[in-house]
């Protein structure tokens, strides 16, 4: 079984592909067989961050049944141990993945055999993005210190929270419990998921307990990217605190990555950042984040066995 790290964050431009690419490089350098998958079907970028302009295979070959196994769409990179499934040459219509195709893709990803599989998710909180984010319990969230980015983080987490509750309860059970909860206390809405869960637990202690346990399995991680000198370096840990206190989800702060113009340069040059600017502040920040994530690694980062 592989460790799967979905990397998401709601807002575009926060550095999801950047972080995925560079974490992948570090994992590969430490000798782990690592696969990066670009799940941002519509607006794929990961190949550029890795410095591969024209990958000759893509994930749509698998979705459109051109090839039988997902494994056949993997391309190797110039970095030993680092493999890649690209979305670069996808057909334009793949952004709207049908439910069946998505489930097939999710199953196929969990069956791949690598040490680490990193999923670069697209922006937004559509079901497609969220379901890939929930493929394992150890999703990594990327945000900047701007309110626009932070509000999307909260949005994404709440979507995951509600989706998990909906998944655990079958549809009609959920509707029944949710309506009953709202009747008891008008504040128990989906926008207030921890309170909703609390009231649900009062109505049906047995189901409530199951829900609570399944939510407690999540161990999210947060990276604060593009931190500028004038920003408050504690913002990341405060965001984690809000989520732990008000949603009762586990959320670990991994670290800050400094804002650095070299990142822009490396992307313009279409070269991996860690390769051309290994001695910058941002590069050492990424290495520290890597150390933190790997040391937090727990068995729970294995994929769920029950995706159907």
């Amino acid at each position, binding site marked *: 079984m592989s460790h799967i790290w979905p990397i998401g964050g709601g807002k575009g431009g926060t550095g999801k592909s950047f972080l995925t690419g560079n974490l992948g490089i570090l994992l590969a350098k430490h000798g782990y067989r690592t696969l990066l998958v670009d799940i941002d079907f519509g607006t794929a970028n990961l190949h550029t961050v890795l410095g591969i302009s024209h990958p000759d295979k893509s994930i749509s070959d698998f979705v459109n049944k051109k090839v039988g196994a997902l494994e056949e769409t993997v391309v190797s990179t110039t970095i030993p141990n680092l493999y890649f499934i690209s979305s670069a040459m996808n057909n334009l219509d793949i952004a709207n993945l049908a439910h069946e195709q998505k489930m097939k893709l999710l199953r196929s990803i969990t069956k791949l055999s690598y040490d680490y599989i990193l999923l670069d998710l697209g922006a937004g909180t559509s079901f497609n993005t969220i379901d890939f984010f929930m493929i394992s319990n150890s999703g990594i969230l990327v945000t900047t210190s701007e309110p626009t980015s932070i509000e999307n983080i*909260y949005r994404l987490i709440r979507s995951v929270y509600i989706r998990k509750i909906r998944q655990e309860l079958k549809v009609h059970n959920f509707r029944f419990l949710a309506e009953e909860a709202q009747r008891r206390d008008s504040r128990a809405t989906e926008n207030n998921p921890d309170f909703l869960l609390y009231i649900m637990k009062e109505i049906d202690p047995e189901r409530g307990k199951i829900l609570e346990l399944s939510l407690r399995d999540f161990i999210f991680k947060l990276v604060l990217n593009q931190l500028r000198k004038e920003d408050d370096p504690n913002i990341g840990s405060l965001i984690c605190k809000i989520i732990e206190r008000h949603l009762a989800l586990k959320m670990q702060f991994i670290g800050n990555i400094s804002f650095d113009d070299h990142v822009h340069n490396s992307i313009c040059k279409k070269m991996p950042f860690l390769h051309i600017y290994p001695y910058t502040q941002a590069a050492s920040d990424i290495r520290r984040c890597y150390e933190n994530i790997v040391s937090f690694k727990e068995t729970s980062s294995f994929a769920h066995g029950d995706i159907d």
Partner: protein
Amino acid sequence: MNPFKKKNHYELLELSPDASSIEIRRAYKNAFELYKDESIASYSFFSPEERKEIISHLEEAYLTLINPESRAEYDKKLIENGTVVEGTQYRQKAKDPISIYDIRKTHSDMLGPRKRPEVLKVLASQNLLIQEIMTKDTMTGADLHAIRTELGISLEKIADETNIRLAVLRAIEEDNFDILPPMVYLKGFLKSYARYLQVDEHIIINGYIKRIAK
């Protein structure tokens, strides 16, 4: 875990029931920073009404806990409903004043740990060389030096502990009679010296004075 809305004052401010007033003030300030309107970290997480509600909870918690009387009353309630165990709540503890200054300029720690007198006594009584010296009728500076080195004590250590000048101690051990202090002082110094080494002070003083007289 309790959802946020059902937390008690201590849980709300993330304090333990024995928090001091300084801790309460600090906790309130930190919490307020996190939940105030302009906070970036909690931006968009709460609706304006929720934010208002949280802030008023925080204020209520702070005002209750910061006042000793209302706090004692609140603690009593928590003890009654079993949230807080009797005896773990905050009590004003009177503390002894701590002295800021240490009048000694040098610290004997720098010269190694002090050997305990009982230990020295045993060492001295078991050491054959020392026992032999102690049977002598007269005591030379070299004899004193031998006793001291057998016990593994430096001259600096004795100087530090007895407040006898190092030069005087050295003169005693080197039989440098010219710079020895007057007899009445010398006796006192020899006494301190012998006591520090835990050997019989009378034998040392009498033996050494006999030696000078020769």
